[in-house]
């Protein structure tokens, strides 16, 4: 009789780690070999996100970043709620449909407000 090895169940997990680790090395390697190169000062910054990376951290930057971050959180959290509902769509039935519709309707009100207020326009 085969002895029970509690680690057997973790083999797929080990594979995932292996693949993920392999990817982490393989993708940059392939990219550096195959990718087109256009080197300029902005491209070579660590984070290419609109702010100067090196220098004083105490500079003012546009409040628009906060608005975008805030809106991202709102609709990100929405997705977190929508996924479990989508997975259990049949089990939750009409009850789930009604509650999620109310939830989505509330968010649509928020979206309409945000849109009309011009928070989605970067240049104004």
């Amino acid at each position, binding site marked *: 009789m085969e002895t029970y090895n509690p680690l057997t169940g973790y083999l797929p997990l080990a594979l995932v780690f292996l693949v993920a680790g392999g990817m982490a090395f393989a993708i940059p390697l392939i990219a550096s070999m195959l990718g087109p190169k256009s080197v300029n000062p902005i491209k070579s910054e660590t984070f290419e996100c609109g702010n100067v990376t090196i220098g004083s951290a105490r500079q003012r930057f546009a409040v628009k970043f906060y608005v975008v971050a805030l809106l991202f959180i709102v609709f990100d959290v929405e997705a977190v709620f929508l996924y479990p509902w989508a997975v259990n769509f049949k089990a939750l039935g009409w009850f789930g449909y009604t509650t999620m519709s109310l939830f989505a309707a*509330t968010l649509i*009100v928020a979206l*309409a*407000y945000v849109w*009309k207020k011009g928070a989605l326009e970067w240049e104004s």
Partner: protein
Amino acid sequence: MPSFSIQDFMPIFPAAILAVGAMALLLSEAFLVSVPHASASRGYQAVIGVITAAFAGTVAFHNAFEDPRVVLQGFAVLDPFSSFVTVVVAVTVGLAVLLSAGFLKHRNAERGEFYALMLFAAAGMSLLALSAEFITLFVNLEVLSVATYALTAYLRRGTRPAEAGFKYFILGAFSGALLLYGAALLYGATGTTKLAGMAEVLRAASSGDKAWLVYCGMVLVATGFAFKVAAVPFHMWTPDVYEGAPTPVTALMSAGVKAAAFVALIRVFVALAPGLGPQVPFVLFGGLALLTMVAGNLMALPQRNVKRMLAYSSVAHAGYVLLGVTALFAPAAGTEGHGMGVLSASPLLGQVPASAHADIYKAILFYLLGYAVTTIGSFGVLAALERREDETRGTTWDLDRFAGLAHSKPGWAIAMAACMLSLGGIPPTVGFMGKLLVFRAAVDAGLLGLAIVGVLTSAAAAYYYLRVVVYMFMRNAAEGAAVPERHWQTDVALAVATAGVILLGILPGPVTAWLTQATMLALR
């Protein structure tokens, strides 16, 4: 599949009405306003706010006569406590919206978002009062907190609102995290987040099993609530935030947030205490009550700034409510062992005290109502007196502003005098009746020492409350003192609040009788 009946949703109707009203105000701001930066086209928004609050209050009042029961699979309860607090919150937010109308118009800052945030905060308060599960409770606490953070920093002129907003946000977030940590420990000890389930597990578990986990959890949860109700030593943010926030918002915070947080606190600790023996909450809340009553009143004594004085007074009044809360966990005089030994099991609160404790509940709820009406009135007069031009100077709320008010604005002076007498606990006002009920409940529960401290501190408090009255009626206004504008909305709100303060003081009978009936029903 979860199954619900329409009856399950009755307790959340008031909150739903408030939320729908708030969304309507948001949309009106986005789609109906033709002139972007003028208050003139926004007169209807305050009316929508008041109508929404009145509608929600009516539904909550109707709910209060329902049979108490657990709804939504144990996530919420429909009982007189939650309904009563929702009525208090609806009255508070209605009056605060009325006060804001004049206040914001004077500053040309009237916006639908302001009223919407007030209504969202009220919805959070209403839901907080009926939460019977920790995640629901935390989310609703955050709903009301986030709305009040934004309201605090709403007027962006000068540094004061920013300071107030930041202090409130950072300390509020911190206290929220403490509460959540405590809830997590309690979940770890019991394996459920529902209060009724926690109580069951704690009762069934052999003593000492996970006691330390539960004790730590309870202390952390109590600390989180103590921040919200501004109990000493967790009151540091109160004067700065109350001073920096727009005055109608301060009124809403000190009346509504406090009432809702106290009901949630009581619900949590009454449910959990029996499983452990009530010694922990008794010592915890007894200590908090003692510190809060003494320190709150002492710190209010030297304040010449009336708004700061009222902020410290709000701290002191949290102490009197905490005295009532302590009485709930007091070792009952004349019976053997702890008073909680005579608890009767009930599905409502996990386990609730027998009818002997009905008087204490009645006292606390009446006190919360009385304090809400009074604090709205006193901050209302303050808001009416404020002038935009004075905001940058530090003297806006100085006592001197009240000098000679009895001559220039007799109506406001009478309203302020009634509120000051009520805060000081002097008859014939609601504050006197509230204090009488709370102190009597404390004495009946055997807390003679704490009750004496309460009486002594409220005697000392009379000094700083009556000083305002003396300034209004016995001093003459300084030469060339500015005359504040009048708005009919402010006058209506002040009239309602003053009428409440005096009528509930002279004729508390109907309310107390109803509270007695309701609490007996709930504790059955």
